[in-house]
């Protein structure tokens, strides 16, 4: 894979639900080491296109290439097995379980030897060590205990754990669906810092967000989605937030040449 190969490439993706066309021959591109923000009005289909990329919906037409190779995901688990992680707005965590349990949910480590093989015992020390390491890397290790239940954490802390989980297991890229939508201003700041930390590690990120200041602060490129397809991709340095909103809502014609 050369440096120029996009991490994700979607070509002519179509998804219909009965008479409704959620994705209308849309293209998509995520480049290496970038934060790509996906913006669009409600119902523009920005969630739909991202779902198609991570296997949550199966497109009717079009093709998706990951690192230049065509893929056909049938579920988000397939995508996850390829090293694609998703951070959900609603967090996807079990509040009554510990931080370590949550980080390893669905991919637990078993002990070596008899205890693990026949009694299927979990390797708690290994899981806790790994979880602590990952949280420390992202500067989140002010947690009292890795065995603290997730419900004792604040919204921002939970999102921090979710981001750490994604960063720990993602080898290809991370999708973040409105990661700051449920958070207060201070907590959003921390999560934005985390996102930039993750990019600094070389993992590209797709960021779906409504929050223009957040998008313009962290994104390298902005994918504007309108009426089921990619309208344009802009460089946040060349446009203002009002421009972006104008493209999104159709108040302004998009630049003819792909600026970014």
């Amino acid at each position, binding site marked *: 894979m050369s440096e120029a190969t996009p991490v994700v490439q979607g070509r002519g993706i179509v998804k219909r639900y009965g008479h409704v066309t959620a994705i209308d021959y849309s293209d998509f591109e995520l480049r290496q080491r970038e934060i790509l923000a996906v913006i669009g009005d409600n119902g523009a289909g920005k969630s739909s296109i991202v779902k198609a990329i991570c296997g949550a919906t199966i497109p009717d037409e079009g093709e998706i290439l990951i690192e230049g190779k065509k893929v056909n995901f049938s579920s988000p688990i397939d995508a996850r097995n390829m090293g694609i992680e998703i951070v959900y707005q609603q967090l996807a965590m079990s*509040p009554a379980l510990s931080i370590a349990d949550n980080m390893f*949910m669905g991919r637990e480590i078993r002990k070596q030897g008899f205890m693990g093989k026949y009694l299927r015992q979990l390797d708690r020390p290994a899981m806790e060590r790994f979880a602590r390491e990952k949280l420390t890397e992202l500067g989140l290790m002010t947690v009292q205990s890795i065995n603290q239940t997730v419900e004792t954490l604040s919204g921002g802390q939970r999102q921090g754990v979710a981001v750490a989980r994604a960063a720990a297991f993602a080898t290809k890229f991370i999708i973040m669906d409105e990661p700051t939508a449920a958070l207060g201003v201070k907590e959003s700041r921390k999560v934005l810092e*985390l996102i930039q930390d993750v990019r600094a590690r070389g993992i590209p990120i797709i960021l779906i967000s409504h929050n223009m*200041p957040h998008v313009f602060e962290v994104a390298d490129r902005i994918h504007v989605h309108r009426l089921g397809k990619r309208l344009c991709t802009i460089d946040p340095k060349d446009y203002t*937030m009002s421009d972006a909103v104008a493209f999104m809502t159709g108040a302004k014609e998009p630049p003819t040449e792909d600026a970014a």
Partner: protein
Amino acid sequence: MSEANQEAREYDTAAGHVESVAEFEDTRGGVLGKLQHLLHVNPSLVPLIVLVGAIVIFGLLLGSKFFSPFAMTLILQQVQIVGIVAAAQSLVILTAGIDLSVGAIMVFSSVIMGQFTFRYGIPVPVAVLCGLAVGTGIGAINGWLVSRVKLPPFIVTLGMWQIILATNFLYSANETIRSQDIEANASFLQFFGTKFSVGGATFTVGVMFMLILIAVLAYSLKHTAWGRHVYAVGDDPEAAELSGVNVHRTLMSVYMLSGLICAFAGWALIGRIGSVSPTSGQLANIESITAVVIGGISLFGGRGSILGSLFGALIVGVFTLGLRLLGADAQWTFLLIGLLIIAAVAVDQWIRKVSG
């Protein structure tokens, strides 16, 4: 720096940029807060305290009549059936479900074991296996209806309870197989009633089975991925699914295991009462739910420990025997159990406030 980025910065400065990432301070304070935290971490502590307290109080009131190996093991024998069924009930309730058909599965399985042996002359071990298979099968239907058809567990098992009970009476023609006949021709059916004594205390195979079953389940729930998934599914099935847990498989395994355990309870029931009676064990569903609730397992799922259910069953057993030995009207037992149920749920709600 573009105008946009400038805007973003100002937006933040206005909000007060905080440098340190995610502070995790402990806001709980005071003795009450500490207690709440302790109970939150060890949900079976409350029923354990109540159990020990009840034993001590009845021991003081009744002396050696109550506080003897004989009386203690008698309690174990009396609660073994409810204890085994409560283990099955705990699994289902941990997934935020409820199983009203546990008692019916138990009775029907015991009837199948008995009738297969006596009506068709099938070798006893095979008949027992058939009973266990039927119990597991009914659990599988429950699980499938809950997980795939997405019907509420309460409705599924309410319906299944009636269906199995009716099938049970139709199939058995309401006939009881007498204890003497079983003893003479198929004593393996009464295997769980086999007694052995250890220094004045009498144990039965059924009691040992209950204790081992709870120990194995407690281990599995705490130390295996399957156990963590059971809790995660009960906590928030959508979140579990998004984290990569196979929710359908977890629910199926829980309901099937519940059916299997109930069938074992049916086998233990034959050992306990000696005969195979299609009218026995009618209260097992309510009694098992009582044990689970008193045991501190949350009816909302995802919280509690299966050890608590054992303690819950034992509390009921201690109250029943203790009050009977005191010569009190049996209604006092029900009255106290009723109070305990309400108190247990109130404590559960209080503990859950930690998440606020």
